[in-house]
């Protein structure tokens, strides 16, 4: 570069990019989603604060479906595979994804985790995200549905404090409802009102992993979502395939 006249100075050009910064994650997520849909697996991204009861809900779910559906779990945690061990003890296949310092799972971590799990044989794959109400909301994993576990002790205003997480939820599980009699200050109506401020279609199910309350309703919601997914697949198959076969559930739809 010349100091006298500036000849050889770099030329500046302004380049429009207009690209989604997380496009790479979204590409891998799309790939995961296609895998799940082709195999007829309903993938559930289960999120929530640390201690909100995600693993306990999965344990209760595993106990309740025993023999009726095949369940697998991928568990994200910063360290330890304790939650995967708990899921295995409840009788389902489970693998841990240890994220190290990462505060969320991304689509690539899930994709690698799938290699260690016989996921194609499942009806439901639960991806238990890292306990965190902020970061996991930003990353698409390729899931079919987003579910947020919110425990009754967390405060009625959690939805408005973490709007991105709750806005993206297809369902909120209000967990530990067996504690409500001991919490006179907690009003479920207030939680519902706050959800309506951030979720256009607020759906809240009350569950208790310890008493089993609401678990059948939760299973029924899952079956409905799996059937809707199967119906979409059938609609894409050649003429002659019957859409109503799908309503019996994902296992039946796969024949």
């Amino acid at each position, binding site marked *: 570069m010349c100091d006298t006249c500036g000849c050889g100075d770099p*030329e*500046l050009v302004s380049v*429009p990019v207009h690209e989604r*910064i*997380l496009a790479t994650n979204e590409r891998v997520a799309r790939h995961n989603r296609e895998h799940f849909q082709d195999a007829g697996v309903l993938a559930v991204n289960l999120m929530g604060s640390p201690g909100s009861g995600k693993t306990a809900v999965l344990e209760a779910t595993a106990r309740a479906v025993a023999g009726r559906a095949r369940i697998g779990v991928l568990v994200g945690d910063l360290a330890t595979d304790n939650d995967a061990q708990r899921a295995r003890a409840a009788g389902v296949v489970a693998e841990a994804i240890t994220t190290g310092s990462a*505060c969320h799972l991304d689509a690539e971590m899930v994709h690698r985790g799938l290699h260690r799990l016989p996921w194609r044989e499942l009806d439901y794959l639960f991806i238990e995200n890292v306990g965190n109400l902020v970061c996991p909301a*930003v990353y698409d994993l390729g899931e079919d549905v987003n579910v947020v576990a919110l425990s009754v002790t967390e405060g009625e205003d959690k939805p408005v404090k973490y709007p*991105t997480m709750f806005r993206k939820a297809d369902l909120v599980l209000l967990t530990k409802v067996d504690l409500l009699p001991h919490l006179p200050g907690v009003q479920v109506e207030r939680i519902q009102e706050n959800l309506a*401020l951030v979720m256009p279609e607020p759906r809240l199910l009350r569950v208790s992993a310890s008493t089993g309350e609401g678990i059948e309703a939760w299973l029924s919601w899952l079956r409905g979502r799996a059937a809707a997914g199967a119906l979409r697949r059938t609609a894409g198959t050649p003429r002659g395939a019957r859409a109503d076969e799908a309503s019996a559930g994902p296992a039946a739809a796969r024949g």
Partner: protein
Amino acid sequence: MHEYSIVQAMFDRIEETARAHHARGVRRVSVRIGRGAGVEIALLRTAYETFRAGTLCEAAAIDIEEVPVRWGCPHGHGELRIGMGLSCAECGSPARLISGDEIILDRLELEVA
């Protein structure tokens, strides 16, 4: 602190673009971040300042445009008024997000030889 992961992903996209234009460096990075995207602007800025040393962006300032959250009716009844709930006042349909969740690399000012 996913803002660090976002900045890493952004550097990947910047490098791809810079390579495609045979650029020697980057002078300015412009991004658009929705207020409902789940990204903390101050943390994004800190992450950018922390990681740009030794990259093509070493001398590049960052402009961050914040995009407000807007909801609309999915059946064409227009935008919802703020604070009036998340269903359309005319037809009652659940609202759909129009803007506010974007995490976009908008424009780069590149040094070309």
